[in-house]
């Protein structure tokens, strides 16, 4: 009886809801716009800032690293307020690419940039950023943003197949609009000058800052790190990224890029000797930087030549102080360059650490064997595939065995394994 009564009231309430809905003509279908506010993350109100999106796991605000493949491996993107540490490859060929992707993504999304380097002038770094791959609609959008008077280049009207003019030009991989999260870039082209000029960026070039006086008395931080820290804190405070300036009408993200941190050019000697006097300088800098980032809307990428650091303990401490750590290992100069197993790839990429923010768990990818390849236009990250070994002597127990069997194919076949049967005619 009671059950029927409750069912009755239940049905009655749903009926009343349905009737109310039909009266107000509100359907349950709600289109999810770009301003979809956050998940059940306990009062964390997400502002709709261009180029960011909330994480599906905990509502944390994420920015793209510039490489959609890397975003996916890091669990959706780089969390705002964290540090991405890139352990440089041996000859520093591929890590500047990741650095440039990060900065280019910032320019396309309209974020403010802060580029710090001890080796290159930040203006030169920005000139070398890759050009984005955009479709026709947002090219016009960007042109209007940049300069109102410039006429679009491709103004050719189609007379016969005029319907095709409305379709976006699909010449490259993945045409995306500028308001999306994560873009593709063409490394063979440079970013258009207007985009750089329209963006808001700050540069820190260490040789220019040598002589200016210090505001804080020198503690154990190296001079270069101290100046950089003060510079970053200044920018964050003056431009209101830490919420201190309530007059700012639109919130934005500050993207900080620090190149070759820890190298001798910054005045630090951890890459030179094993027992250095100032071994705490770098770790202290990272801790204070983390404090600055956590209290502001910013994300930071740091490339560090960890292969040069003699003291392994410092590498472990630096890893603990960074949030996300990605290591690049290129095959250049090692015996793997000529190994037929790795012929399709230029190096390995290791995701060493992913942070657990606001959560007990993190989105760790199951794939641990990742390799990267620098094609003519793109930098791709793929799962490491072993080529199929179709020779007669197949032993798949280990990669070394495969390499051995490849060598057994004989010098006439060259160094190509797989697909070449050992047939004598």
């Amino acid at each position, binding site marked *: 009886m009671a059950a029927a009564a409750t069912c009755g009231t239940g049905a009655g309430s749903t009926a009343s809801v349905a009737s109310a809905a039909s009266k107000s003509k509100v359907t349950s279908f709600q289109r999810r716009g770009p301003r979809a506010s956050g998940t059940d*993350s*306990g009062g*964390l109100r997400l502002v709709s800032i261009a180029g960011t999106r909330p994480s599906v796991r*905990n509502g944390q605000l994420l920015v793209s690293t510039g490489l959609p493949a890397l975003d996916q491996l890091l669990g959706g993107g780089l969390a705002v307020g964290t540090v991405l540490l890139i352990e440089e490859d041996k000859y520093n060929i591929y890590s500047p690419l990741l650095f440039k992707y990060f900065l280019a993504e910032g320019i396309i999304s309209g974020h403010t940039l802060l580029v710090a380097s001890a080796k290159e002038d930040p203006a030169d770094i920005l000139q070398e950023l890759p050009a984005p791959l955009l479709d026709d609609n947002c090219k016009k959008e960007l042109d209007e943003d940049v300069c109102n008077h410039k006429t679009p280049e491709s103004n050719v009207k189609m007379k016969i197949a005029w319907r095709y003019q409305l379709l976006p030009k699909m010449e490259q991989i993945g045409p995306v609009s500028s308001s999306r999260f994560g873009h593709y870039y063409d490394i063979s082209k440079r970013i258009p000058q207007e985009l750089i000029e329209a963006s808001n960026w700050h540069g820190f070039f260490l040789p220019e800052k040598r002589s200016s006086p210090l505001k*804080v*008395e*020198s*503690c*154990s931080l190296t001079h270069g790190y101290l100046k950089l*820290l*003060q510079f970053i*804190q200044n920018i964050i405070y003056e431009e209101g990224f830490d919420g201190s300036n309530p007059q700012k009408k639109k919130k934005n993200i500050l993207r900080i890029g620090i190149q070759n941190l820890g190298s001798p050019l910054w005045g630090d000697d951890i890459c030179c000797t094993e027992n250095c006097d100032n071994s*705490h300088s770098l*770790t*202290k800098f990272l*801790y*204070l930087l*983390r*404090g*600055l980032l*956590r*209290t502001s809307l910013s994300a930071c990428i740091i490339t560090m030549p960890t292969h040069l650091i003699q003291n*392994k*303990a410092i*590498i*472990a*401490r630096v890893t*603990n*102080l960074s949030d996300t750590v990605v290591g690049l290992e290129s095959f250049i100069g090692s015996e793997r360059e000529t190994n037929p197993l790795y012929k399709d790839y230029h190096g390995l990429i290791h995701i060493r650490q992913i942070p*657990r*923010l*606001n*959560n*007990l*768990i993190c989105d*760790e990818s*199951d794939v*641990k064997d990742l390799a990267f390849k620098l094609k003519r236009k793109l930098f791709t990250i793929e799962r490491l595939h072993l080529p199929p070994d179709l020779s007669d002597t197949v032993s798949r127990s280990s990669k070394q065995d495969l390499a051995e069997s490849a060598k057994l194919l004989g010098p006439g076949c060259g160094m190509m394994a797989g697909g070449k049967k050992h047939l004598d005619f």
Partner: protein
Amino acid sequence: MFPELNNLLNITPDRAEQGKLTLLCDAKTDGSFLVHHFLSFYLKANCKVCFVALIQSFSHYNIVGQKLGVSLTSARERGQLVFLEGLKSSVDVFFQANEEPHPLQFLREAKPGNLQPLFEFVREALKPEENGEAAWRCPVLLVDDLSLLLSLGVGAVAVLDFVHYCRATVCWELKGNMVVLVHDSGDAEDEENDILLNGLSHQSHLILRTEGLATGFCRDVHGQLRILWRRPSQPTAPRDRSLTYQYKIQDKSVSFFAKGMSPAVL
């Protein structure tokens, strides 16, 4: 808190022991879930907690705490929780040079200093009420984590001195508990960290050591937890009882099982 871990350790919020130093140690994995466990455990046990959180921000612990059933903001408001947020305070200490003593004053110094201001802060936070009535049960000091102090230029001996002073005050004088987290660097040959870890291992009553699996990454088993009881209260009880479990961390809890008995395998 994780009820399964409470069962393994044989403790409940009602019958928390007193005067104990618990060492949390992680090697090649992230042992911070234990910090969240003990934080929520002692808050639920109605103890006064002083949390020296150096590695993450307050909102991080708060959001995870809400998943585990405690609210850090309300605990802080009613005075049960004294929270030292290392990241925010370090920026204040470093960039605004004023002369008053601050718990993280060692950041300003060029030479590695001692942690006396930090100890004063802890002592001030956990001292009993003047009027004599005990609103809370035993005081608890929680530190996350101590290895970070080594990265900031403090020597291992200074950190051990700090732990010794805190033990004398919190564990012996105020009959409270201490829980500290130290990273084990493993084969990274961090001598200072090894000194700290060995020194603390000898002093502590309970050691919870999380390690990654020897075989590498596994989706269903996130690691191994080794529980070591030292210094039992009864002299007749066997010394140094040790148990090993494997665990899997989920969104709001951690499940523990015996080695090889993961539900994914069975």
